[in-house]
């Protein structure tokens, strides 16, 4: 197995796992972790490709994406924290007042 295919396998698996966590889990924190996992998996793939092509711009892009992911984490966690503090619990399934 080449490095590329290994990376693709890992990235793909991580992405799928993250997706599964996001869609199938009901705890907000778990869902959030799934999101982070997906972002990391994508980043992994990009890094591998960037390294393969010795593309500095792409590697810089990865750094950018990491920063954005961090910002997303801030926002997401703050929302989750608010939900917790508001006493709504951390159950996505319970949040279904808005419907129809």
């Amino acid at each position: 197995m080449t490095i590329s295919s290994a990376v693709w396998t890992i990235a793909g698996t991580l992405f799928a796992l993250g997706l599964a966590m996001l869609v199938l889990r009901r705890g907000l924190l778990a869902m959030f972790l799934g999101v982070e996992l997906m972002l990391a998996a994508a980043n992994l793939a990009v890094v591998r490709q960037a390294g393969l092509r010795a593309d500095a711009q792409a590697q810089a892009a990865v750094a950018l994406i990491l920063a954005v992911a961090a910002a997303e984490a801030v926002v997401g966690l703050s929302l989750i924290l608010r939900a917790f503090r508001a006493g709504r619990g951390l159950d996505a399934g319970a949040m279904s007042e808005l419907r129809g």
Partner: protein
Amino acid sequence: MSHVAVPLEAWLLFAAPVAALLIGFFLMRPLAPEKTHWPILLSCAVVTAASLSLAGQVLAGRSFDVNVWRWAAVEGWGVDFGLRVDGPGAAVLAMVAVVGSLIHLYAAGYMKGDPGFSRFFLVFHLFFLAMIGLLTANNYVQLYLFWELVGLASYLLVGHWFHKASARRAALQAFLVNRVGDFGFLLALLLLLARYKVARFHLLYLLVAAGRHEMLPVIAGLLIWAACAKSAQWPLYFWLPDAMEGPTPTSALMHAATMVTAGVFLLVRSWPLIAAVPGLPVVVAWIGAFTALAAALIAGTRKDLKRILAYSTVSHLGLMMLALGLGRVGAAIFHLVVHGFFKAALFLCAGNVAHALRQPTASVDEVGGWGRAMPLTYASFVVAALSLAGVWPLAGFFSKDAIVDAAWERGGLLAAAALLVCAGSAFYIFRMLLLTFHGARPEQKGLAAHPHEAGPGLAAPPLFLALGAAAAGALGPTGSRLVFSGLRGLPVGRLGGDLVLNLPGDPALPAFSWTTALLSAAFAAAGAAAAYRLTMADPGWDWRWRGGRAEAVLASDFGWTTLMARLAAAVAALAGFVGRVLDRAWWDGLLESGAAAARGAGGLAARAADGRLNDYLWWMTAGAAVLLAGALR
């Protein structure tokens, strides 16, 4: 392309009515409804001045056709607002302006005291504006828009006394028949845009002249259909007599002078297209001749004053169609202009007679020998009637002679029909004249025994109109030069006959022919004599033929209305059957199930949106997967 800037008068043509309408609607209607007509009459004056000035300019050679504003543009397709003021347009516009203004004046007196006075004037003036827009349009889309607006205004005006069931029915009928015609116009318009990509008249003239004839028979046929509906030609004429339910000013303006002539005008504008289809102009001529003759005969048998005039209008429109069909576009326009004057005058006189009876309309049974009691109205009527019958030296003689001349040249049945129409016209108009203003009937009772002249507001306008009907003949050479003049320096289109639109220089009036003049005079005299014989010399005759089969046949327009009524009944029966049996289950059910399906789909979609985040995410993932799979196929 003309390099003339759009003159101020052209702007005033629109600005004045719009301003009057706005003032009338927002200021007068709430504050002083009985004075709504003041800004409107002022606007009429401005429009008249502007249109006469424009006519003068066109005579001097300064006609123009410019696009003013592109109001929608996407790649390769655009809709413009433009103005075209050329010989035909300016001539008809001047007539509409003058006649329209006088009728507005008349309406101020006639409609006084009517509870819907303010509404009437506003819609009346809206119609006026729409007509102006129609006459100055430089492309089919604009013409169609104003055509529709004219139809809408006519519906509102015919149904003005909407509390009368007959008026409502007449308005609806007028509207529906016009819709049928409009549908044809719309189809033609879409075909034009699809095939030729342009809607502007002179560009189309160029294209057709260059040999582009795709779908032209269909387009031209549809335009003729639309014109027949609007100008009340057979078979779509029957709405016009019934439209007499509207107030007299409405009948005078719309159904005599302007709206019905919109159909003829459409054909004038479309003539290069129609003439390019071999055999189609002749069809137009035949439709015109047939309608003219049939309507003239029917007019001679009707009792209601306004209905006689309505059939007369149908007949004269047929004459205009005949002229067009024979290629004499100029003659058609000339007759259109002159007809506007004398027909409007006749309608207003009929209105005065009815007004004296305090009725919306009058029948020949109710009047008689009123000439002495209503001298002004009588004088107007006589002059207008003589013009209609084509008596020299009034204008009607010249315009009708041009048409008879064309028919005579053609020979055959068309010539015979034209001459018979002369006779018929003289007959019915003299019959109406003699029965109304001469002789006396012992049946006169009540008010009818003491008719009096209408007030100056009602008597003056028809007088002026009648003078116009007469004088247009005196203005003959100038008037015809205006009518026959075309746009200088613009691209030409070839036509048959004596007139080529857009021709540099100006073709002269067709030569005067003694043969046709004497022949038509003879036939007219015969018709008048017959009218005299049958009304005055033998007063009882007018009743004797009634009640018989003859009357039944004529009353039903030679069986046409009976046929239409039977056809309508059959359609209604079929609709009833469909409605009763199938409607509930089928059409209604279809509509209902359509609505239910939409609601049900909504319910399904709403149930899917159950508020649970994970479900949303699941659907999103599935959707993305579908998109992915689709892209990878």
